[in-house]
């Protein structure tokens, strides 16, 4: 049974979320959302999943500020952030590239909640599907949110690693460096190296990213696809047409 890229990512994310009791997923994030729902499905204790844009998967009722207050209270264990650029110290840029701010050559939407949640949520998973030297840069042009650093700033949270279309890097907050842990089936360490413009370490044994078993695949393609379809109908139509 062949496993799609999306299915592999959903499965990988669910594994990363295994011990999280409360998971929040930002806008435009169908794969993290599906991963969170899969983690919840497997959890033995009550797990809260809040998917922005979903009404059903929403633990909140006090307006947009509530997610941020919940994170500050310690009630969000995991969140996802991306970046138009990500560098080797896990700084992320969601604002723009080139030129001189604010007149950047490229302008992305903006920093959203990154300048806050990145400091406070214990398990931030950096998730960016595109894995190219354009995205994985030596130094971001604009720091929407800085990676962990020893600057005395209150920072109970931070990144656990970076998941892309090619691989999974863990992140060491003390050493401020990514380590390549697994490479997705069909890709190679060389390919990761060629497409990453920042320096990173390589684990002693870099295995292939584990694929979901048949039972998990059936779960993803059935109930999980249907659940995420409430907030992301278009995604499900394209990726899981049988569940749409």
């Amino acid at each position, binding site marked *: 049974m062949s496993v799609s890229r999306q299915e592999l990512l959903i499965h990988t994310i669910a594994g990363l979320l295994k011990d999280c009791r409360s998971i929040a997923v930002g*806008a*435009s994030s169908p794969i993290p959302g599906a991963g969170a729902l899969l983690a919840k499905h497997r959890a033995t204790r009550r797990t809260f999943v809040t998917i922005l844009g979903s*009404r059903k998967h929403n633990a909140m*009722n*006090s*307006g*947009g*500020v*509530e997610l*941020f207050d919940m994170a*500050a209270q310690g009630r969000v264990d995991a969140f996802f952030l991306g970046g138009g650029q990500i560098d080797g110290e896990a700084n992320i840029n*969601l*604002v723009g590239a080139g030129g001189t*701010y*604010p*007149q950047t050559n490229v*302008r992305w*939407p*903006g*920093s*959203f*909640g*990154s*300048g*806050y*949640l*990145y*400091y*406070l949520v214990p398990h931030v998973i950096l998730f960016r599907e595109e894995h190219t030297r354009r995205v994985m840069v030596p130094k971001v042009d*604009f*720091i*929407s*949110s*800085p990676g962990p*650093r020893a*600057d*005395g*700033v*209150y920072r109970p949270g931070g990144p656990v690693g970076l998941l892309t279309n090619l691989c999974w890097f863990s992140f060491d907050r003390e050493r401020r460096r990514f380590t390549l842990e697994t490479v997705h089936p069909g890709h190679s360490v060389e390919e990761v190296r060629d497409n990453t413009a920042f320096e990173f370490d390589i684990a002693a044994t870099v295995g292939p990213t584990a694929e979901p078993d048949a039972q998990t695949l059936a779960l993803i393609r059935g109930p999980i696809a249907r659940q995420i379809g409430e907030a992301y109908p*278009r995604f499900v139509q394209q990726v899981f047409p049988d569940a749409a």
Partner: protein
Amino acid sequence: MSQDWLLGSAEELAARIPDGAKVAIGVDNTGVAMETTRAMIRRGVRDLHLVCVPMAGLQADLLIGAGCISTLETSAVTFGEYGVPHRFHDALKRGALKMMDATCPAIYAAMEAGRKEIPFIPLRGLLGSDLVVHRPDWKTIDNPFAPEADRPDPILLLPAIRPDVALIHAPYADRNGNIFIGRRRDFALMAQASRQGALVTVEEVRDIDLMASEETAAGALPAIYVEATAVAPRGAWPLGLPDVYDIDEAHFRRYGELARTADGFARYLDEFVHRRKQAAE
């Protein structure tokens, strides 16, 4: 019961927004006052400071393209899957916009400070972000309550945001001018923090009293925070209104196409914004 709060049209609401006002808007598709926005463009309002709570999309792009905005305070401008906010990008490149990039919780916290009329509020996060570099209105201090006196605990202070008005579109008002907002509490925050209060369009006025029971009171924006209201059926169009109508996807995409160029945007305004004015004249 006097219904002096009920105006005749979105044009009358727009007339209450002076040039130079600080205007709070919410997130696309939560109940955005698009008909009021069009009325503002028809009236030719200028020099607004737009506060996006906490981000913006079509509503902001339209106002920017029409030249109504001089300052944009937001955590993001995005059309999501419906394309790219070209008028925003164009204005930014031309240097026509004073840009105040923020992060969502900073806008919320500053609005909460505005609601309390406290001059500032501290917030965690943010230090080390380039956002701070470009926000001279924010100040870093050492937390005077740091647990260890010999170990500084830097923290950011944000000045309060008190908009002049908040723009909202909602499913209905009750007979006393209370507005049904459900759990979209952002609208309450926006209205409360605003000096004049909210300018609200609604699909309809219902002959009920939302405040009469615990069940319905919780989902109301109390009338005391509402400066004025007008009925505007499908007033959020082409955006959606939760539980009432969906986003007009075809129209949104068409906007995205036309707004690529200044000319195309002008044609869009002619057809979808000014047409109504001409019809009325």
